[in-house]
């Protein structure tokens, strides 16, 4: 259970073996050469070597417009350069200026002497542009596999716990137990574009099914659906307001249902990457069950807020999430405030496998959460207020097998320190299984 986050691949935003590797290098790393090259090109615009060197540097630092100026000059010198037109199409594509990109690409294959490889590349880009200019957009991520956990039931490290403020020995059946499980996850999104400005109706779906080999009371099912309206704010920013519905099953019984809403906003920060923030609130209604007869005590409102970043700095890719959760339950002792930080460093590389290049992503992850409860739980200890610190360390390794099919291997170690022994626990989890995204 402790590795649910990682199991469905949500600790590593953007980490994907199918994702392109590399990115612009920091401006500071190339600025002196870059300015000097521009001056040279400015003085000698007819010098092809200098123009291409400048364009190369411009692309490296993400200044696609400067590179476009240099390449468009080539078409002044010779308008019959299909490859340069292809490259201009690619650069405009990178700027998301899809109509101009399409114009250059069509122009590139207009003549009869276009090499086959260029024609194929042009056709591939045209198809991708068509897809992006379509009135809808969707993505689906599927992952299934096997997982082993050393503490699948979140049992405390020791059987000596607190009950009614006294030391007590827990029934052995609540002690930590290892288990195998199989799991399947689906994360899908669909957007219907209302215009070219980023306005869209968006819906997302998250599904998770986990079946334990022996501890069936921890079989988990989760479905979350969101539906919202995204409003574009200029070229690189937008906000979205949306509704949320959740349904969770635990031990094959209903665990809780939730309804809520959220507001999110995101913007790109130049070439650095993406920043997104959101605030969500849900009313969760828990159901008592045979295995969890007191689950209903957690019924209440969960407020969540977080800032997410996805930055690329030269060869470094960094994703972070800083979050806050505030829970208000019908039982005061289940009220808490929780502060979290998670980081991932996806390292993307391409290696030839059986003669074909394959993309790989290795992503070390780390996270920390501090949960402070509001009042003591008299059943556990009428005096001590629960304080938990959760540490998460792990790594995800995604390997592309073919096209959009991959294999994900994941290892996660989770440790919870608490001022109450009932909640001190740790778990090592390892999982492996195929991924499919389209």
């Amino acid at each position, binding site marked *: 259970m402790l590795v649910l986050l990682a199991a469905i691949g949500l600790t590593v935003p953007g980490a994907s073996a199918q994702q392109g590797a590399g990115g612009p290098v920091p401006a500071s790393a190339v600025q002196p050469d870059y300015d000097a090259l521009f001056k040279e090109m400015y003085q000698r615009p007819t010098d092809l070597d200098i123009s291409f060197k400048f364009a190369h540097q411009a692309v490296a630092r993400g200044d696609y417009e400067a590179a476009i100026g240099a390449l468009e000059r080539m078409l002044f010198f010779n308008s019959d350069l299909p490859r340069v037109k292809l490259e201009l199409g690619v650069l405009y594509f990178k700027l998301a200026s899809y109509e101009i990109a399409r114009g250059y690409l069509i122009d590139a294959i207009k003549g009869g002497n276009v090499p086959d490889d260029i024609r194929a590349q042009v056709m591939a880009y045209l198809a991708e542009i068509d897809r992006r200019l379509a009135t809808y957009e969707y993505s689906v991520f599927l992952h299934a596999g096997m997982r082993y956990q050393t503490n699948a039931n979140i049992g405390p490290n020791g059987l000596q716990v607190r009950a009614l403020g006294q030391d007590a020995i827990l029934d052995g059946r609540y002690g930590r137990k290892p288990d195998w499980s199989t799991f399947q996850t689906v994360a899908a999104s669909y957007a219907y574009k209302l215009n070219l400005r980023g306005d869209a109706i968006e819906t997302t779906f998250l599904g998770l099914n986990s079946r334990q080999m022996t501890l069936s009371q921890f079989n988990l099912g989760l479905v979350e659906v969101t539906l919202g309206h995204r409003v574009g704010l200029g070229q690189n920013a937008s906000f979205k307001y949306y509704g949320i519905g959740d349904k969770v099953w635990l031990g094959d019984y209903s665990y809780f249902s939730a309804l809520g809403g959220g507001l999110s906003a995101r913007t790109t920060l130049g070439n650095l990457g993406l920043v997104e923030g959101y605030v969500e609130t849900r009313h969760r209604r828990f159901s008592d069950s045979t295995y969890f007869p007191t*689950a209903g005590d957690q019924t209440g409102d969960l407020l969540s807020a977080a800032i997410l970043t996805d930055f690329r700095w030269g060869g470094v890719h960094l994703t972070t999430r800083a979050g806050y959760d505030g829970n208000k339950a019908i039982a005061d002792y289940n009220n808490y405030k929780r502060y979290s930080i998670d980081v991932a460093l996806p390292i993307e590389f391409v290696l030839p496998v059986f003669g074909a290049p394959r993309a790989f992503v290795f992503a070390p992850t780390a996270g920390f959460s501090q949960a402070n409860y509001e009042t003591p739980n008299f059943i556990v200890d009428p005096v001590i207020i629960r304080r938990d610190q959760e540490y998460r360390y792990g790594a995800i390794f995604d390997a592309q097998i073919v096209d959009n099919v991959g294999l994900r291997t994941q290892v996660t170690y989770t440790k919870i320190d608490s001022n109450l022994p009932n909640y001190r626990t740790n778990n090592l989890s390892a999982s492996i299984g195929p991924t499919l995204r389209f």
Partner: protein
Amino acid sequence: MRRVSGQRIGQSVMAALAVAMFSASALAQEVGKASAVNPNATANLRTITIGASITHKERIQTTSAGSVQLLFLDKTSMTVGPNSDLTIDEYVYDPNAGSGKLAATLGKGALRFVGGQISHTGDAEIRTASATVGIRGGVALIGTHHVYAGYGSSTVSSGGSTVTLGAGEYTALQGGQPPSPPGPPPPNFVLNQIQLFQSGSGQFGGVARGAASQGNVQRAESRATGTPGGSVAGSLTPQAPPPPTPRINPVVSTLNQTIQTSTQQSAVQPLAQQIQQEQAANARPSLTLTGFVGGLMTSVFNASTYYAPSSTGVAGGTASVALDATTGRMQANFNGDVAHGPNSYYLPTTFNYQFGSTDPNLDAQGAYGDYNHFGGAAAEDKTGKPLSTINGLPVTNQVGAMLTVTREQARQLTSDDGSAATTNFCQCDYTRWGLWANQSTRSSYADTILGFWVAGRPTTATEVPTSGQATYAGHVIAAIDNQGTQYVSTGNFSNTVNFGTRSGQVTVTGLDSTNYTGQVQFLPDPRNFAGSLAGDTGARQMALTGSFFRGASSPVGEMGGAVAISGTNYLGGGIFAAQKK
């Protein structure tokens, strides 16, 4: 100052760029260069060639086949299409700050604007005959009758109205009328514009024919990238779009903690209950418990020194146990009858035993340690004579005791038949049970009792439900006489009570390797019930009498009673205790 108008150099194919400037313009500050020109100008006015300086306030005109690319100090590039007229009105650029201002007027024709530093940090402004276009951070295709924003955003003002174009949006301009609403460009508009800004057939942008041949271009690019066949634009194969940045789901991220909370709450609940019971038990309440006794009595006739005949029968009756926390005393009174079976000749009929005393004038003969630990010995009057009676007459010598029994002690009492190991002894909140053993004499008789008592907190008749169903689980413990051999055995007890039909379905399992099933019926006082059970071994039968007792969470939360067992050469007497599940 005097401005010299640019002059078109004939109507030839020449794309002459006549530069109208002040006479002192050559000395003016350079703001850019003509980085490509179609064709070279040959006019008598200053006709720009590739590499020519562009200065402030410069006016550039092209013919029907002419075009020029201007490269500015801030890396902005402008392509001026054929039949165009462009004047650089203002250009200020601070390279240290990376900011400045660019303003130009497109008198006619078409312009492609690819932004540099100035449009990244502020607006670049292009005026046309009918509109003013502000460009921020991007690429724009501008004509006297249209504006298309390829990248970034553009504001277009005309006829007193302003529209803002996002990337990929187009607006049409009609002679001073407000711009049309932003929308997609007309079909083939962008493609036509691209071709418009390229060199035509036989044009080479100001370099020698062949200087930018495909081969030369490819070689230059390879040298620039350091890779044969390298591309400055990067991969020429489209990458699959990165999946939308998935984020850590708030529900999922807190789910682990949520489930842990539920799990540990479930785990600690029984512990807390157990502690509460212990705390309640340790509270030493002062109260009187009522209940039942059951056991086997053996009476021996000692009239002859040579011959001592005996009889064994089942003894059963009621129990009253008074607990006084103030004095630490207890008093148990067990009153009942002895059933007369086949061998009953020497047995008495009734008994009234007292163990311990709460009378402060008498010896305590017992102690009340706590609710789990109390017991008493044979009570005596002030003269030391036993207070117990048999058949209504005082006994002469009495040695005996009653005391509470724990599960562990019960297991030691039982025989080695293994039944105690698998018996789920009642973990009753309030009901207590224990051992009762006594030996006394009357006349020539010696009467020995081995049995058990159970007593609970009485409930009231009105508190007994009249509908619904409940299952009680606990244990039976009994003294057994099996063909003359006596021992103790235990078994599991279950009673599924239907309060509506005033009955209960009882099963006793594993008692001396025998299972019993049968029904009990409520008595007129609904707190009490009785019935008989049939065993599955031989002809064994069990008569059962019991009562509901108060529990911690229900007035009928517990029950207890006496059992009397009979069979072929087989007798048993004992008690049962159970708690509502």
